[in-house]
């Protein structure tokens, strides 16, 4: 239930970043400053020519679906996707802090949501995988 809510929220955050980028601009930091602009303008914001927020949307959609489904397949997919998402979020946070030298609140928000989802999915997987649905 919590995972469903967090994943839905994640879809919203990632969609906002993707829409802001596709409009030729960048996400607007709520507290002002150019952090979001700097991060969005960096070469790290795109992977294979696609904004990484698009990958984020796909990930959150999968996590939303996994949270609504029962069974080991859903548990393993939820764990796997959130694990990759969490790992990539760690890498992106490292880039923001040490390479781009700017922090984007939207990226931090997404990283926090992905961390929560990883925790929830890890608990779900370790606790219930292999047991009856």
């Amino acid at each position, binding site marked *: 239930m919590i995972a469903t809510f967090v994943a839905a929220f994640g879809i919203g955050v990632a969609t906002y970043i993707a829409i802001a980028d596709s409009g030729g601009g960048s996400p607007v930091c709520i507290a*002002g*400053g150019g952090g979001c602009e*700097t991060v969005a*303008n960096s*070469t790290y914001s795109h992977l294979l020519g696609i904004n990484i927020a698009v990958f984020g949307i796909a990930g959150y959609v999968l996590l939303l679906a996994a949270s609504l489904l029962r069974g*080991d397949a859903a548990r393993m997919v939820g764990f796997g996707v959130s694990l990759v998402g969490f790992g*990539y979020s760690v890498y992106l946070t490292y880039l923001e802090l040490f390479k*781009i*030298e700017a922090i984007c609140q939207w990226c931090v928000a997404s990283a926090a949501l992905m961390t929560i989802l990883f925790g929830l999915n890890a608990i779900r997987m370790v606790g219930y995988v*292999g047991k009856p649905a």
Partner: protein
Amino acid sequence: MSGSEERRNRLLQIGSAAAFLVVAVVLVLIVISANKTSGGDTNLEDVGLVGNQLKGIPQNGLVLGEPSAKVTLYEFGDLKCPVCKAFSEEIVPNVIDSKVRDGEAKIEFKNFTIIDEESTPAGAAAIAAGAQGRGWSFIELFYRNQGPETSSYVTDAFLTEIAKGAGVPDITQWNKDRKSPKTVAEVESTTQEAEKLGFTGTPSFAVEGPGSNGLETLGTPGSSEAIEEAIDAAG
């Protein structure tokens, strides 16, 4: 061990292996990016630092500061000039913090191309960035990533990376603007203006305000204090 326990253990092993793999991949990615040298077309130096330095200050064309500021400081510079880079890093930031940020003065950058033939496209690219409100971000970021004076590094790719790092919103328009004869003519025109003012090197400064006798040339002041005093006198 029952079948379901075996299955559970196998799935847990898969999960653990996946976690181990992800940790390893993230570490490798971090190590690779940490070893990547800055500069070039993938990593610009000091994007965040320049962003912070100019944060909250209006940029119009190549003018930094409140348009209504009563004193205007003119900087005649060449983006390929190493002394201009040193000024941009050590002297101009103090003036921005003490005089520009509070609206007392504004700084207008004017191209004075003296280094080589690459100075003109560099200056034109700054003007084109200025047309999209990113002139000073472009100039400062260019200086922070400036190459050796005698090398040919001002390529389209280099300029485009600077423009992107500076946050120029419309790169297609910027490309069009920087190559237009009007923009190139503007670079040549300000260079002639500098020569008429008697400047022979970059950066050279001039100041104008209600307290000055028209446009007063300052040459190349040796410190930020000297520039600040000139602004005070012109105010």
